[in-house]
């Protein structure tokens, strides 16, 4: 049990953060709080993926001593996996893009219904 905890605790922490974001998206009433929950969820996914690429006793994926007379052969064990970092750069950009469009939609919803609370919006929709 303890060895499983030590081996896997990074995944569990990020799953907990994901679930916090998911609860905010589902349960909160205000639209802006839901958007913040979406952002927390996306951040947790990004951290989860980046933690997959870690290696024991390895340094950041920027080659050291690559130019000049000290250049030597590169061992893959010395550098952490760059692929999750690259994929998560895309994910960060997508998170910013969806945040911008979500806020624009929230502005339009407010202009139409004059409230950002989900239950008041549903009441106004049902009365139409």
């Amino acid at each position, binding site marked *: 049990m303890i060895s499983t905890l030590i081996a896997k605790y990074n995944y569990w922490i990020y799953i907990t953060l994901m679930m916090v974001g998911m*609860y905010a998206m589902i349960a909160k009433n205000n639209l802006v709080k839901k958007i913040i929950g979406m952002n927390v969820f996306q951040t947790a996914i990004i951290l989860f993926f980046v933690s*997959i690429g870690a290696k024991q006793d390895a340094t950041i994926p920027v080659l050291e001593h690559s130019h000049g007379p000290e*250049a030597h052969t590169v061992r893959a064990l010395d550098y952490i996996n760059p692929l999750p970092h*690259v994929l998560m*750069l895309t994910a960060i950009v997508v998170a910013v893009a969806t945040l911008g469009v979500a806020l624009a939609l929230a*502005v*339009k919803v407010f202009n139409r219904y004059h409230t950002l609370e989900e239950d008041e919006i549903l009441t106004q929709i049902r009365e139409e």
Partner: protein
Amino acid sequence: MKWAALMVVLSTGGLLIFATDDFPPWRDPHSPASEHVSPRYIEKSMEETGVPNLVTAVLADYRGYDTLFETAVIFTAGIACFLLLRTYREKEKESRLYRHVHTGLIVEVEAGSRMREASEHFERADRLWAPDDLIIRTACRILIPFIQLFGLQVLANGHHTPGGGFQGGVILGASLILLALSRDLRTATRMMPERISGLLSASGVLVYAGIGTVCVLLGHSFLDYAALAPILFVDPVQARNLGILGVEIGVAMAVMATMIVIYGNVASAGYYDEGL
């Protein structure tokens, strides 16, 4: 306390934690994610592209097609915000506030009439927040050129230090958003008009796709930067190095302009007269 939502969240979390039983241990050097194609990128990157920063080499060269469409995604988000929000009709008649520059007195002009915009004695003040604090204005005025220099440094040193197109573009966009926050949105729009920022974001994507198309016109595959070697008079490894730099410049242009477009439209709800 919403019990249904809590049950859903707890059961999903429980299922995911149960699924981590099959995951490799953390920081395992021989995990499946680090085994198949990743060692090739790490070992061959310097001799094939000449870029020490492995993340930039993989992002802009080995997985450059993916990054092209990511740039298109951020451009599309800017267009979506513009199309959703931008309106060119005036707000309904409401009074405007003007500040006397020398004494700080606020004058309210009733709906329908307005003062001369470019007067030297009066300046327009925003209704929600009137940023006339001298400390904020002066501090941001000193900081903004250095922020822009730092953004350009992050973009240019993307080959050797962590950095690159996205990071540098966001820093450059943040410098203009700081100008909009410390002065007002009209000042930032005067510095970077909407037309220029729209054209800049589109031309960023065009630079990226254009470099790829030039490679096709020279006979190689799309985004194969080694094709640029004859026209740049360098060897293929250096051509890939320069191709990565050109592509990152395109990305930085697109990201900077899109940040400004999204901020301008969301902060002023499309009217572009009074910002946050």
